[in-house]
């Protein structure tokens, strides 16, 4: 029988390979050996060590790349620093032209990029050709636009400086685009380190960028091990670190940069829920699962790896899914007729296989379709594990491979609960043909991207990034710009402190009664009616848990009052109260209502204007005029955030999706705030007001030195219809209390305006649970100025962006 006749009868698929010839020619042209790309030139350091790059589909050695050492990292950062001097001064419209040229040039070389990406990483050519590379170009086009508009639309901002960028191996080109495009658009220069497994496309990219004429030193690419990454991160002349990768490495970077004043954005792991309701298009949702977990062999940080199906359709859905899996084709990444390529490296393959074995040991039922795998190469079958409970490690931990676990739910509220039962919060997918249900669930799942009736949608115009331990910062969209910008008034923070290794930060011995001889600031002949401010927790005045009190002295050293000396348990109680207020609906109230309450606070503060002025004078010894200005500014600030309460909800993103993509500025949740000493009332108001205006509930630690303005203030709160628990005030030792807040697993963000050393500790301690932090590094801030004391920076810190994608069409 002729071969064609045979196929005519069997109707099997055959091989459909994309030719690797052009890639091989490019590799040969470089002698299969690459140096570092610094200042638009290939640099091969003397005595350099090399590292092999293999094609995971067949084990073939593709090329060798340089292992950068300290001097090479220094050289790359120096090149970037030199280039920054001119690039940051280059007009936006000129930078826009460069980005446009890069985008065009990437498109011109699109097939070469796609084929190399597939050979180096193992992803199917369909994905690199139709998804990764088009999105790569798209990001440069999108941010070319922001470069053009920067001087008019972002006039209050300046570039951050030299940026170190460390990217993972799962989307080598796309992650590079997400990092480099916004950075150079805003006038920063970069040193990029690709992942060890996948270094080649970044080097090709560098060449293509140089061909497009980008000035030398703006983009530098150095290859190396993780220690080269650490050298970048710890280098004194780097102003920002952007990282995508595992949560564990993210923790390390947080510690390495703590207290340094370097900006940090982290895009980390996930275990994203894929929620299917009984009124969903089940066949559509099955295809969604394919796109969610078998995209890029499941090596996707936002992979929909937890299938959560309504119980009444679960059996049917799982059967449909299994049938669909039988049609999956796994094979040569360059084959145009496959769904899944190769796992990037043997160690990843082993990890995936280990997880599947764990899942089975945990009682899961493992399903793999009866399909063929190539005889050699790192291939893994699409895998479904059913019958696990939410407590199983396989359900909780990120597997980073083609392995899906499934759970069920009964009601929408249970679906939300199961979806949110995770440390992560990167993405989610919600399937229902009921728009009310779908959008309600989308709004309640804690994740940076929520895809309704679709999954794994990306576009330059929409931000991507996580909640919780999935990291912070956004890439893409307008929100992605702020990772690469600093307000014009602010210099690069260079905090100075000497770390006292012996002293444990935040240790505190409760204060003793004031020494005899400290006179009471009285002025009356009669003994003062004792007025001892308490803590303010859950809308009630409560005594400090430890029953210790500390004295507050006036500028002249006289005793003017005593406040509770708070401890861990007071913080615990305050956080609980704040959560109660949050879940009972502060964030759900509309902005109009929150603005009215803020206006009312302002009104009541103003009514007691004189009293607050007197208190400031008494505590600080400042002039009446200066204290009056502070109180007036506080009233004004409350007005500002009453204004912002209904004007910062988000934007409609102009993505390529047919439908609506909405960026919603959601509250962080519960924010712990340690106030500065310099403005006892205004500092407190300036931080509390934006937080609560945007729907957060707060635990406030007032100025340690001058706490009485804050304790006076709770009477204002009491009379202003502020629901109990929205604002909680715990007085005492700032660092002691802050430490408890930072370590608290259920506090979503901590703002700290204490010392430089304290800022270091806040950032360092936050690595344990990856909460967002905002610290003042002990540097002065002019709270009286509107530029420095209010506005976008505060609103940005009070919110996290969730992008909800809603395709339309019936």
């Amino acid at each position, binding site marked *: 029988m*002729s*071969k*064609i*006749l*045979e*196929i*005519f009868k069997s*109707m*099997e*698929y*055959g*091989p*459909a390979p994309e030719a690797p010839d052009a890639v091989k020619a490019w590799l040969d042209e470089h002698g299969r050996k690459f140096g570092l790309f610094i200042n638009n030139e290939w640099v091969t350091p003397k005595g350099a060590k090399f590292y092999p790059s293999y094609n995971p589909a067949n084990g073939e050695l593709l090329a060798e790349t340089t292992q950068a050492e300290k001097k090479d990292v220094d050289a790359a950062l120096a090149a970037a620093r030199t280039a920054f001097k001119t690039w940051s001064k280059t007009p936006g419209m000129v930078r826009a032209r460069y980005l446009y040229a890069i985008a065009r040039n990437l498109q011109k070389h699109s097939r070469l990029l796609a084929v190399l990406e597939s050979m180096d990483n193992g992803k199917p050519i*369909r994905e690199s050709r*139709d998804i990764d590379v088009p999105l790569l170009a798209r990001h440069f086009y999108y941010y070319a636009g922001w470069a053009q508009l920067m001087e008019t639309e972002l006039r209050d901002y300046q570039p951050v400086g030299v940026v170190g960028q460390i990217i993972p191996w799962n989307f080598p080109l796309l992650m590079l685009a997400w990092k480099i495009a916004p950075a150079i658009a805003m006038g920063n220069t970069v040193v990029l380190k690709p992942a060890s497994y996948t270094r080649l496309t970044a080097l090709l990219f560098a060449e293509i960028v140089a061909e497009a004429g980008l000035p030398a030193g703006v983009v530098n690419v150095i290859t190396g091990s993780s220690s080269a990454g650490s050298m970048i991160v710890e280098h004194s002349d780097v102003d920002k670190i952007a990282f995508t990768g595992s949560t564990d490495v993210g923790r390390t970077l947080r510690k390495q940069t703590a207290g340094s004043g370097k900006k940090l954005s982290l895009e980390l792991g996930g275990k994203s829920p894929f929620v299917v309701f009984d*009124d*969903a*298009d*089940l*066949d*559509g*949702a099955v*295809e*969604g699962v394919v*796109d969610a977990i078998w995209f890029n062999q499941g090596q996707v940080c936002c992979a929909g790896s937890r299938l959560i199906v309504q119980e009444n359709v679960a059996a049917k859905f799982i059967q449909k899914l299994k049938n669909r899996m039988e*049609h999956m*084709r796994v094979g040569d990444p360059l084959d*145009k*007729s*496959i*769904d899944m390529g190769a796992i990037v490296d043997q160690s990843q393959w082993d990890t995936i296989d280990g997880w599947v074995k764990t899942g089975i040991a945990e009682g899961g039922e493992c399903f793999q379709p009866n399909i063929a795998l190539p005889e050699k190469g790192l291939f893994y079958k699409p895998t479904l594990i059913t019958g696990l409970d939410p407590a199983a490690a396989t359900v909780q931990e990120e597997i980073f491979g083609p392995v899906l676990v499934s759970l069920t739910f009964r009601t929408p509220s249970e679906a939300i609960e199961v979806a949110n039962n995770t440390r992560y919060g990167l993405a989610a997918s919600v*399937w229902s*043909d009921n728009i009310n249900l779908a959008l309600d669930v989308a709004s309640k799942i804690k994740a940076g991207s929520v895809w309704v*009736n*679709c999954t794994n949608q990306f576009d330059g115009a929409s931000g991507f990034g996580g909640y919780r331990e999935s990291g912070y910062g956004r890439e893409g969209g307008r929100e992605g710009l702020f990772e690469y910008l600093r307000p014009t008034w602010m210099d690069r923070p260079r905090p100075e402190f000497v770390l006292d290794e012996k002293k444990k930060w935040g240790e505190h011995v409760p204060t003793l009664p004031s020494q005899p001889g400290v006179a009471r600031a009285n002025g009356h002949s009669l003994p003062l009616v004792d007025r001892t401010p308490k803590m303010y927790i859950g809308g009630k005045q409560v005594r400090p848990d430890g029953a210790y009190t500390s004295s507050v002295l006036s500028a002249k050293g006289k005793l003017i009052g005593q406040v509770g000396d708070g401890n861990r348990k007071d913080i615990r109680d305050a956080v609980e109260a704040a959560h109660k207020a949050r879940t009972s609906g502060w964030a759900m109230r509309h902005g109009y209502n929150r603005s009215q309450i803020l206006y009312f606070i302002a009104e009541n503060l103003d009514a007691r204007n004189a009293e607050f002025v007197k208190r400031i004078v008494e505590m600080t010894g400042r002039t009446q005029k200066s204290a009056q200005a502070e109180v007036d500014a506080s009233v004004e600030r409350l007005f500002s955030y009453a204004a912002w309460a209904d004007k910062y909800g988000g934007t409609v993103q102009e993505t390529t999706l*047919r*439908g609506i993509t909405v960026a919603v500025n959601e509250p962080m949740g519960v924010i712990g705030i340690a106030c500065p000493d310099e403005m006892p009332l205004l500092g407190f108001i300036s931080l509390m007001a934006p937080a609560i205006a945007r729907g957060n509930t707060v635990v406030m630690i007032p100025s340690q030195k001058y706490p009485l303005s804050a304790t006076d203030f709770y009477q204002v709160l009491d009379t202003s219809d502020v629901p109990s628990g929205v604002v909680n005030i715990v007085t005492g030792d700032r660092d002691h209390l802050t430490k408890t807040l930072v370590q608290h697993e259920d506090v979503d963000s901590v703002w700290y305006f204490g010392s430089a050393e304290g800022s270091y500790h806040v950032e360092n301690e936050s690595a344990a649970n990856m909460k967002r932090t905002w610290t003042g590094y002990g540097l002065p801030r002019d709270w009286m100025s509107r530029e420095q004391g209010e506005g976008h920076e505060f609103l940005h810190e009070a919110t996290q962006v969730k992008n909800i994608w809603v*395709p*339309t*069409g*019936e």
Partner: protein
Amino acid sequence: MTSQNNRNPGTPLDLDWVMGAHVNKSAVERRVESLPKRRTVKKEWQAAWLLRAVTCIDLTTLAGDDTPGRVKRLCAKARQPIRADMLARLGLDGEKVTVGAVCVYPNRVHDAVEALRGSDIPVASVATGFPAGQTPLPQRIQEIEQAIEAGAREIDVVISRNHVLTGDWKSLYDELKQFRAACGDAAHMKTILATGDLGTLKQVYQASLVAMMAGSDFIKTSTGKETVNATLEFSLVMTRAIRDYLDRFGYKVGFKPAGGISSAKQAMAWQSLMKEELGDEWLKNDLFRIGASSLLTDIERQLYHYITGHYAAKHHMPMG
């Protein structure tokens, strides 16, 4: 075609199922957009798949100017769709490669039957007031009977779109049951949904279910006369309905896209759709047909290119 005892006998009308349908358009669109990029066949595989596609073609002429001569010429092409020398060079000499059927108006059935005598190629006739279906019911049924009498072994009926658009599933079901009764054992019924006239993909799915419940042997997208004819979106929804019907009742119903499929590349996209959504059985002509007139020529040209490495001229392919 499927043997008599495997034919879909139809089922009672299950309105709960029909009313509970969910089809999400954007999800359908994404599947259809990615599928042809996930699957492709090259070289020998492409040649074999295209030959298979030829055997699934309902070679069609449905025009006001159809004459006995025109039908005769078409039937000759149906018997020998690929030049014998080309078949031989493809290694299929001796293999019977003919189209799936010849599809004509009722008035031309007799001509086609005569021209195809001695071959196994069935004649399909459109009926029931094709293409609009806006003819009184008795006449529509009579049309089926007359076509069968003239020798048609397949009847491509059109549905009353108004029943779908008004949600009158019972009337649609009853009407199709009568058509099916008229077809009896003599002819298979291929039900044209005229998807381009329907309002939503959900209605396409619902109409597919009702058509199968009423006993259709095939469901077919279009008459070729609507503004929008066969699309992969409509086809995906209909194949999923076929799959769901099979899962529930165990009957295999065939699928026929028609209208607008004129290139070999399109034909292969549909073949992938059948293979992926329904399985290999739906690649052969007892469960899969493509209603087309000019598709065959493009397939011939692609095969010629495969054999010779040269791009072919249309006038080198014998006309139908």
